[in-house]
């Protein structure tokens, strides 16, 4: 009993020591990160493993929003907004529309997966890939040394309209083309 108490004491003491050592803001930061990262991963798994494709789509949207929160948490407020607008809004709507247009009878099993072998193979590939990328991420001696930057929106606007004006225009054209292409594809070029 004493031993147990002693251990509890020890842990409590450790926790206090920990609390003393860390500043609270970094702890909050960690909390926020782990919360949204965990949620994002959870929803991402939901995208894959939910049986109903509509649920999957919802789960995907949730993932997007979690990622947007992560963006916000590191001060990328414009990116976060874009993420919510484009992914959480437009893409989600598109996907839901696509689900509607390619609707099938049994919605409960509308998100089928392939066989076990395929799963094993995919797990191996994805696992190895994850292992590799994780190793790269862990082994890379990156130093977190952020420079103080101004507001994101004006900074981005400056870059976009000065140094990166050509890619910006190209991106615009690309979007236009994609739109036309999507219309043509969906409408059918031969049915004019």
């Amino acid at each position, binding site marked *: 009993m004493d031993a147990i108490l002693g251990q509890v004491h020890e842990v409590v003491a450790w926790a206090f020591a920990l609390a003393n050592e860390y500043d609270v803001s*970094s*702890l909050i930061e*960690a909390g926020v990160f782990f919360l949204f*990262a965990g949620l994002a*991963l959870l929803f*991402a*798994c939901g*995208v*894959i493993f939910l049986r109903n*494709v509509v649920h*999957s789509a919802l789960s*995907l949207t949730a*993932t*997007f929003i979690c*990622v947007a929160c*992560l*963006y916000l948490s*590191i001060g*990328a407020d414009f*990116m976060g907004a874009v*993420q919510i607008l484009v*992914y959480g809004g437009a*893409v989600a709507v*598109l*996907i839901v*529309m*696509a689900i509607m247009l*390619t609707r099938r009878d049994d919605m409960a099993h509308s998100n*089928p*997966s392939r066989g076990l072998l395929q799963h094993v193979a*995919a*797990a191996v*590939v*994805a696992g190895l*890939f*994850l292992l590799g*990328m994780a190793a*790269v*991420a*862990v082994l890379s001696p*990156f130093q*977190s*040394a*952020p420079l103080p*930057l101004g507001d*994101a929106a004006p900074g*981005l606007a400056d*870059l*976009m309209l000065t*140094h990166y004006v050509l*890619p*910006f225009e190209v991106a615009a054209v*690309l*979007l236009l*083309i994609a*739109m036309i292409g*999507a*219309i043509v*594809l*969906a409408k059918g070029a031969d049915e004019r």
Partner: protein
Amino acid sequence: MMNIMEFMQLATHVGLHHFLLFSAILFAIGLFGLLTKKGLIPILMCVELMLNAVNINLVAFNHYMPVPDYSGQLMAIFSVAVAASEIAVGVALAFRIYRDYGTVNVDELKEMKG
């Protein structure tokens, strides 16, 4: 054993590595889905996941590395634009395929067989 303290210290100091690992896991999940899903729409969704993972990297690098401007985020925005076009065309294609073939299951679409 690695000191738990040290580990916790590392883990609770959110930095670039956290984001890189997170995006790697997200990407791996997307990849896993890409390889296992049958339906065309879920596959598209998985692709979106993977794209997101990439964007996270870009933004995180922009935040944590000593860079003088927001070009990393800008890259992410371009990437979003490309992803948007991709999803638009992808959805249109899926719709088209559904109309022409009556299915969106990729294992039934083997026109490319050599």
